């Protein structure tokens, strides 16, 4: 422990991935026994930063100093041994083992016999840690049976059992109830009292302000600033998070649909563990955005709309008629297209060529004798049509799709839906992982399609996209509508505020 009470410091930390600088020359420090909040929009670099501290990535440039001495973590193990613990959003727990076993996995106390676990000591030690943190948990229960909040506690207990001096928590309260959040707060404050430092990443500013001593804002990979919580307020922080949003960089406002004809209407819609009693309308020729942070339910709402996951209750009306969408085929038949956010796992067909990836959705229609002979020329013709419309760059139609750049892959996925002459398009994170130039192209293209009558409903975690592209933006927070913005009323700070639950009652929001 150095004289200034500083525990950890980074100097000029930089990490570059192909096409993007994730962390850009970050100088960051954590003091002993402090709760340090780390905030920023998605893509600001927070996750990458903590992964470097956790030993998952090696920085390309810069130093990490622990207690004033330079260290480097080439494995997660080394990071752990330096008494740093990272609690990721997905948790690293074994569901079929008990709480106590999870805490001490690999270090179980043994009996005299050597390989048999001394459960008495194991449970006692685990219970000890839990009581010091005032966690009401039964050490013998299986992790599979406990709630998310309780799993959070187990992870914390695990970190403590390693005698960690720094615990990094990534969005710990994203999916918790009010009561559970309060409990976690108690525990975190308890930790601070015992001299443990915490880096607390969260989108919820009110939490950061309640818990933290200092708050650091990141944007586009750089540190914007670090302030003492006592010396700042939420609006200042939001301003730092948002910065100056370049308004004219992306697509311009298109011909706003005067004839506001509803295409799709969702009424009293609920999805288990996601959204509760939501209603909204998608009009013809408009681009509507559903925005929300982790835990807001936006993604699952859209997945349910396409039939990927089932709904709990509610109704969908398409072109005025009530419809049932239980699986993707139903939605496709209605004329709804879908582009997933997870290209690699749920969108692309890796073993197949660009041509086949594109035409797979309509290949049945491109045949003689109802599905027996594929008409190659027809297939190529349709392919060429889309290729030129979207300007997809590739070596040739036969090239394997995995060799295309992210942007072009996304174009193929969007093109696939266009081939079905759909009336509505659902896009999840349409330009994630795509370079700026391609982003602008895709936005222009979406705008052009909307002007021709296509309705688009999308979600995005990239602020500029939310501010500039859609005609309307509905914000969800914890499964309910928090705010609605039109092009005229759009304000980036208010948008962010609504997303994180900090609203001023206007814009149709519920405080």
């Amino acid at each position, binding site marked *: 422990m150095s004289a200034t009470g500083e525990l950890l410091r980074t100097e000029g930390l930089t990490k570059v991935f192909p096409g993007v600088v994730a962390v850009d020359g970050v100088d960051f420090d954590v003091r002993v026994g402090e709760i340090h909040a780390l905030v920023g929009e998605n893509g600001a670099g927070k996750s990458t930063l903590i992964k470097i501290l956790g030993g998952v990535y090696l920085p390309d440039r810069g130093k990490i100093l622990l207690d004033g001495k330079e260290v480097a973590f080439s494995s997660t193990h080394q990071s752990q041994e330096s008494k740093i613990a990272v609690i990721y959003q997905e948790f690293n727990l074994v569901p079929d083992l008990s709480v106590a076993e999870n805490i001490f996995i690999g270090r179980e106390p043994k009996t005299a016999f050597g390989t048999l676990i001394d459960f008495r000591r194991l449970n006692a030690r685990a219970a000890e840690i839990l009581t010091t943190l005032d966690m009401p948990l039964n050490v013998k229960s299986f992790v599979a049976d406990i709630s998310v909040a309780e799993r959070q506690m187990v992870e914390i207990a695990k970190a403590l059992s390693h005698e960690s001096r720094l615990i990094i928590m990534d969005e710990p309260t994203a999916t918790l109830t009010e009561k559970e959040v309060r409990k976690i707060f108690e525990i975190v404050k308890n930790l601070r009292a015992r001299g443990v430092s915490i880096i607390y990443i969260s989108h919820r500013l009110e939490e950061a302000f309640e818990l933290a001593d200092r708050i650091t804002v990141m944007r586009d990979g750089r540190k914007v600033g670090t302030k003492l919580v006592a010396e700042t307020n939420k609006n200042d922080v939001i301003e730092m998070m948002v910065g100056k949003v370049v308004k004219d960089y992306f697509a311009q406002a298109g011909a706003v649909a005067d004839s506001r004809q509803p295409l799709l209407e969702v009424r009293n819609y609920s999805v288990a563990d996601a959204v509760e009693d939501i209603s909204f309308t998608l009009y013809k020729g408009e681009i509507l955005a559903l925005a929300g942070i982790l835990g807001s339910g936006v993604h699952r709402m859209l997945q349910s709309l*396409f039939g*990927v996951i089932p709904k709990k209750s509610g109704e969908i009306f398409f072109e005025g008629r009530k419809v049932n969408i239980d*699986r*993707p*085929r139903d939605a*496709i*038949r209605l004329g709804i297209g*879908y582009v*997933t956010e997870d290209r690699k*796992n*749920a*969108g*692309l*067909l*890796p*073993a*197949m060529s660009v041509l*086949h990836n594109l035409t*797979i*959705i309509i*290949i*049945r229609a491109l*045949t003689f004798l109802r*599905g*027996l*002979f*594929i008409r190659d020329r027809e297939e190529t013709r349709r392919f060429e049509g889309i290729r030129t419309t979207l300007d997809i760059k590739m070596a040739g139609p036969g090239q394997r799709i*995995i060799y295309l750049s992210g942007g072009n892959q996304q174009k193929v996925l969007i093109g*696939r839906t266009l081939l079905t002459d759909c009336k509505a398009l659902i896009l999840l994170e349409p330009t994630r992982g795509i370079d700026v130039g391609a982003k602008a192209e895709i936005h222009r293209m979406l705008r052009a399609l909307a002007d021709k009558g296509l309705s688009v409903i999308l979600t995005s975690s990239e602020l500029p996209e939310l501010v500039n592209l859609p005609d309307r933006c509905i914000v969800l927070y914890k499964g309910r509508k928090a705010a609605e913005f039109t092009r005229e009323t759009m304000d980036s700070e208010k948008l962010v505020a609504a997303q994180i639950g900090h609203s001023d009652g206007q814009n149709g929001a519920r405080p």
Partner: protein
Amino acid sequence: MVWAANRWENFGLPFLVAILLLVFSLLSSPFRSSYSLVSNLSFSSLVGIGSIGMVFCIMSGDFDISIGSMSALAGVLGASMVTRIGSPAAMLLTIALASLFGFVNGVFVTKLRIPAFITTLGMQFVYRALAYIYTTNTPVYIEDKLWLSIGSGSVLGIPFPILLMALCFAAALYVLRKTPFGRYVIAVGTNKNAAMLSGINVDFVKMAVFTLVGFFVGIATVVTASYLGSVNPGQTGQGYEFRVITIVVLGGTALTGGNGNLLGAFFAALFITYMETGLGMLQVNSYWQYVATGFVLIFAVGINRVKSAVLGQRDT
């Protein structure tokens, strides 16, 4: 390395087959004779035809280890009907029954979501047991000339099994490359989720694939029965699934699904058949065959993994 990996995909197997033929021809004179070479080619149709369905199955991401027993049951049922319905009908019956068994497997896998390997492992014993029970453990002999001539007959000097095998492979290649169904099989195997999101009826594709497995096994059973002159509830199909899977994997079809190699399976069928006969002609203890085939299987999977890794293909 990448050059070699790319070349292997297309030429590796024919290359291996050529080397194998060369080596055995040098070592054994009976092997060299054109009669033996041709008859072995004919003989390879037994596993070759059966492997076609399995290629589709593995391409779609599943397995079927019950084909040996399917063959036995369909075979005894069909062969025992020859005297009553005549041999053409009996042969068709065999094929139809085998397809039905495949279909049943498919239903278990898709509707009940039971992993394919355990389903087919269980059904393997059910089919085999039914074969024993039906025949009270006695072989069914085929005395009908028509059926027997399938294995030994020839058209324009080319043995019939070879023609049949060529026909089957050609048909399969066509389906795979030129029909939507073929595309669906690849899509389901390479990314089930994406396939579903594109509106493909994954369950239907899988059931169809399992039925196809049965279909081709049925054809192979007819030819096998013709060769042996009988169908034996205990012997027929023993180890068949093992050899067929080895062939499919050796032929370059990835176990992870999506990438299928029908031609590769063809050459692999040749390879395995020639290897077994060659070893036999060299008077090598037939038990070494077990060891050899087991090695080939594990080796084949290993090679596939290396190739995938080198070419940077997605490996689940």
